[in-house]
């Protein structure tokens, strides 16, 4: 006797069918395979050996630290730079439209392209960056070859590539802040800096949450750019979890690699879920 809802569940079906069949089923299957010695041709049950092995990987700790450093560094920089750029690009300066496009442009280029490009630009002796630095008398470092710098360099390139999207989200966020707040602050005598810290930053918070969460997930999962630029090298110095996992996969240790995937997922979930919860809670309070 109950009438049908105007929002029927079958609307979910088409998407769910694709998602479940092509994503969920394989993912769940892979949880099983993470418990096996698995290669293209067979899967022998291994219990938790893969997990033990993964944790005893000599470079895992390094990879883990790198992953966290990379994710927090890039997401932090994207957040800060994105906000600053967005504020700049909504302040009515000359060439604003052009600047917005220019900042977003790197988002359009494929990772491989970006990787190749920066491998060349960051070449220690012939790369444009160091040539330019040399011109002003600075002896540029080996951006990608110095083990202390490699991860940092990739992170910078990732920021370069991704800051456009963050800026865009922030521009959208700033557009939702009523001018009244700024006028009220001006009447209260707030300087530009105070307006930024005390009005813009708190009120643009929903955008901040989006940027942080998206870029953090992206950073924790990031693989393609690292692979295109350093393949985790030199040595293992810029290895992150995703590249460690991929290397196991490449080497044919599929079970091990899948175990790594599960671990990576748990890591992401453990970092992102509480963070998202915390950020959203603060937002609701606000």
């Amino acid at each position, binding site marked *: 006797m109950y009438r049908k809802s105007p929002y029927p569940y079958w609307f979910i079906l088409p998407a769910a069918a694709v998602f479940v069949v092509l994503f969920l089923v394989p993912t769940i299957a892979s949880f099983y395979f993470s418990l096996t*010695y698995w*290669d*293209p*041709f*067979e899967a*022998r049950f291994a219990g938790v*050996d893969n997990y033990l*092995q993964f944790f005893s990987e*000599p*470079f895992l700790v390094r990879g883990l630290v790198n992953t966290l450093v990379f994710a927090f560094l890039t997401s932090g920089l994207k957040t800060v730079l994105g906000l600053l750029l967005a504020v700049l690009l909504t302040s009515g300066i000359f060439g604003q439209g052009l600047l917005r496009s220019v900042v977003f442009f790197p988002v359009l280029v494929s990772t491989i392209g970006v990787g190749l490009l920066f*491998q060349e630009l*960051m*070449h*220690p*002796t*012939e*790369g444009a960056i160091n040539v330019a630095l040399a011109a002003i008398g600075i002896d540029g470092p*080996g951006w*990608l*070859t*110095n*083990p202390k710098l490699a991860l940092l360099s990739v992170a910078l390139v990732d920021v370069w590539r991704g800051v456009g999207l963050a800026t865009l989200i922030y521009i959208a966020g700033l557009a939702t802040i009523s001018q009244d707040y700024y006028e009220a602050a001006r009447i209260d005598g707030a300087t530009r800096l105070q307006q930024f810290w005390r009005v813009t930053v708190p009120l643009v918070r929903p955008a901040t949450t989006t940027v942080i969460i998206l870029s953090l997930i992206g950073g924790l999962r990031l693989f393609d750019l690292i692979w295109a630029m350093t*393949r*985790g*090298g*030199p*040595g*293992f*110095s810029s290895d992150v979890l995703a590249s460690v996992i991929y*290397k*196991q*996969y*490449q*080497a*044919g*240790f599929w079970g*091990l690699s899948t175990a790594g995937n599960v671990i990576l997922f748990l890591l992401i979930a453990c970092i992102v879920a509480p963070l998202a919860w915390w950020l959203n809670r603060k937002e609701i309070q606000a």
Partner: protein
Amino acid sequence: QELTFLTDSSADSVAVTEALTAAYTAAHPDVTFSIETRPGGSEGDNIVKTRLATGEMSDLFIYNSGSLLQALRPDRTLLAIDDIPNFGLINDAFISTVQGSEGGTYGVPYETAQGGGIYYHKPTYEQLGLEIPKTWDAFMANNARIAEETEVAPIAQTYRETWTSQLFVLADYYNVQSEVPAFAEQYTANEAKYATTPAALRGFEKLQEAYEAGYFNEDFGAANYNDGVRMVATGEAAHYPMLTFAVGLFQQNHPDQMEDVGFFAQPGDSADENGLTVWMPTSLYAPRSTEHPEIAKDFLNFVASPEACDIITDTIGATGPYLIEGCTLPPEVPGMVADMLPYFEEEVRTAPALEFLSPVKGPALEQLTVEVGSGIRDAQSAAELYDKDVAKQARQLGLPNW
């Protein structure tokens, strides 16, 4: 019929594949080929494995022989070719590297055999009056003089492509074997280790010594294989440890400097035991899943013929000895190839690389050698880590005693 053919994307492989298939089509007009390329390196390995495992392999594909082949489970996935007419022409040593554990043979050599050793810049040697070194110490002494008396980098290293960093270790295997002849067996059985076998450890140590002496080119971290070849061809560097398939690249990029470059085996600690570590050629295989097994085999048979060798020579030039009986090299080969041939003339002066003797090979070797070569890690600890790395592979393969 159209057969699909998966080759790696290097210009040489593609050129050879195009030439061979064209020749075959000329003889059998009803058979055509669709050539598909894949990336090289372990990325390519993976694609091959995945496609084999999922039954989606092309009708013909080229792939390594030796330990990497074992990971393909050849007995289950590949077409045995013991019955092709030209089987008898194939070199025995090669056959042992393309056999499965159940004795079937699956591949035919697609190129020439390779030596792993050191290219050197002849004009620099002449200018300083240096001799071809027969021992590691002599090699280092040469380097010392080069470093002192010229602007030239004594040794070119190219870690942008990490696989090039392994040469000092891998090409040292002749020396390992001559000191510990049973190393491969013991190694497979988990009885010998790199870290605990001084002879094996030497490879890592040599790399470390070279780094510590500061003999590498300045941009070794960012230079790539192309750069390495260029450096030794143009005299920017005096030495470049590499496999002999580099000949093709010398020919393409530096045809005018061909005769400026020579080649010698990586020297050991004793002048008496001087020989070359040999890499078996890449091979051509057909998967079991092919719908055209007869044509595929016939094509394999064709590739295992002297006629095919000539086509290869015509296409990319001579880069080393062929492993098919009856194949000959043209009378005029580049000097660096000529430098390699004497080693093959005496049985005792060559030894296959370890990967052709043991299925155990760790995936992290190239990163470890990059670390040693960049001074991030010392030889001992790299060897220890490599031993651990290798264990994964052994366990994955289910080898006994691991």
